[in-house]
């Protein structure tokens, strides 16, 4: 049953990836665009396919998979279906880094400054998090530290906006924070890819430990799981993946929350099986949403993060309502 689910999800991601390559304002035929992508002959079409649509579709897969995977790992570790990457403050700190880069003008002079600053924000958040929750701190300490880091980063972002002398910089910051995959290049892909791969590998290695945590921290430790190590690998993995995702795409919420929640019953609720399923599911959701923003309002540049929040939030409310009714 699980293999069928994984096959279906992989097919879905492949289909949406192809659809993403074929969606855009430039009216290019299917065979023409694919030929331009593969053999590189055809002038402007090659440019559109290789420099605009391919990085966009690739980033869709990477960002979606990263957010889905991080959500599943965090929910498994915290044993709480309401956990998400934003919860431990990595998204907000990463956004703060980017905002500082835009505000200081660094982003305008050096193209890599924005993603690098976002990564620095994520790394700082993790260090602060570990410092606040202590080397052996439990789940609650981690959540509280995450909320504190998140609140601090949000407040500092607000301060930067508040003090911004330049209204253009302020509006650029606000738009950047909404989250989007438009106008990204292969350089963004190469910047995010190594971090995403390293972070993703770290998160995938946690499967057995997360399974054992189904029984609680004491029982998991008695099954031979080194909890302090698991916690460190998990936080570092989430920071790398979410930091890289935020660096190239801005803040995109609800994917890490809703995707694991939706797929959990389909994998028999096992945390280790949920990791790959959520990665695939997240990739499918971001690809679909990114196609949707191009179809719904091609001339208005609807932001991806806005769409995921508008669709994701009511959907999640519905899930909470349903869970509340089912509970004894």
């Amino acid at each position, binding site marked *: 049953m699980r293999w069928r689910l994984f096959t279906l999800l992989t097919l879905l991601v492949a289909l949406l990836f192809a659809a993403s390559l074929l969606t855009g304002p430039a009216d290019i035929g299917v065979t023409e665009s694919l030929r331009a992508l593969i053999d590189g002959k055809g002038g402007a079409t090659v440019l559109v396919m290789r420099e605009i649509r391919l990085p966009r579709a690739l980033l869709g897969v990477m960002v979606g998979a990263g957010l889905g995977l991080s959500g599943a790992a965090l929910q498994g570790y915290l*044993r709480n279906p309401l956990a998400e990457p934003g919860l431990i403050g990595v998204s907000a700190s990463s956004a703060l880094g980017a905002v500082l880069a835009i505000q200081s003008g660094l982003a305008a002079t050096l193209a890599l400054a924005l993603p690098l600053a976002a990564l620095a924000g994520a790394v700082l958040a993790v260090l602060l998090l570990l410092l606040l929750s202590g080397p052996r701190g439990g789940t609650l300490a981690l959540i509280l530290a995450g909320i504190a880091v998140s609140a601090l980063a949000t407040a500092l972002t607000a301060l930067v906006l508040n003090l911004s002398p330049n209204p253009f910089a302020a509006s650029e910051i606000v738009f950047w924070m909404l989250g989007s995959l438009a106008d990204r290049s292969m350089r963004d892909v190469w910047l995010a890819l190594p971090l995403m791969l390293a972070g993703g590998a770290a998160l995938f290695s946690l499967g*057995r430990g997360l399974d*054992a945590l189904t029984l*609680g921290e*004491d029982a998991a*430790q008695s*099954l*031979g799981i080194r909890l302090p190590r698991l916690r460190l690998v998990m936080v570092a993995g989430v920071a790398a993946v979410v930091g890289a995702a935020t660096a190239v795409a801005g803040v995109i919420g609800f994917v890490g929350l809703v995707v694991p929640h939706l797929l959990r019953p389909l994998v*028999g*609720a096992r945390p280790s099986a949920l990791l790959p399923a959520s990665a695939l599911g997240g990739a499918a959701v971001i690809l679909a949403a990114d196609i949707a923003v191009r179809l719904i309002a091609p001339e208005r540049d609807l932001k991806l993060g806005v769409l995921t929040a508008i669709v994701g939030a009511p959907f999640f409310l519905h899930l909470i309502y349903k869970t509340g009714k089912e509970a004894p």
Partner: protein
Amino acid sequence: MTLLQVSDLTVIRRARVALEGVSFALGAGECVGLVGANGAGKTTLMRASLGLLAPSRGSSSIAALPPAARARKVAWLPQTREVAWPVSVRELVALGRIPHGRRASASDAAAIDAAIAAMGLNGFEERTATRLSGGEQARVLIARALAQDTPLLLADEPIAGLDPAQQMTTMSLFREFAGKGRTVLCALHDLGLAARYCSRVLVLHKGRLIADGRPETVFDAGILATAFGIRAHFEIGDNGPLFQPLEVL
């Protein structure tokens, strides 16, 4: 053969002595009851013995092992019956096989089947563990610990919340487990069941081990008065050991 050697184990938390100078050894083939009033230090003693809690002083032979090796020597059944996700009963019991390697093997399947059968859970395998009754869930978690297939089992009030028949079934299962050269140490509140099923009883009082021996020597009027503040009747009759609490002193 000694399965667990605890020496001078002392735990001080927030200036309060939770455990003081506890020493004992568990050999193979024992079914040991750990009794004491609420707050006497039963859970602290077991967690410190397992290495889940760093002692202020003293040592435990099990706690010194690396986590993976320890998990093949001792199974731990905590009192809090936590099941975080709605997994199937079989998947939950299978978690006990985590210390035995990554690849599912025939011995894994055999251990899981045996544990499910021992706890009378045949027919429950595909049920969702979080939707079972409290007693059923307790049995699933005991089965999980049995599936770990270790020489030593530490259980914190494993029979709390079970009905009388299930309590006796579980205790005789533990005794049978001990009969096969393994050892069980379980914290119990029911002194009657401890008297009937345990070959040895440890009595904790305010963090100290005040008695250690066969039930008939341990359930002495003075020890019962100190540890529990009760008077009780104890006899070994035709139906085996009988323990009857009479009054609070």
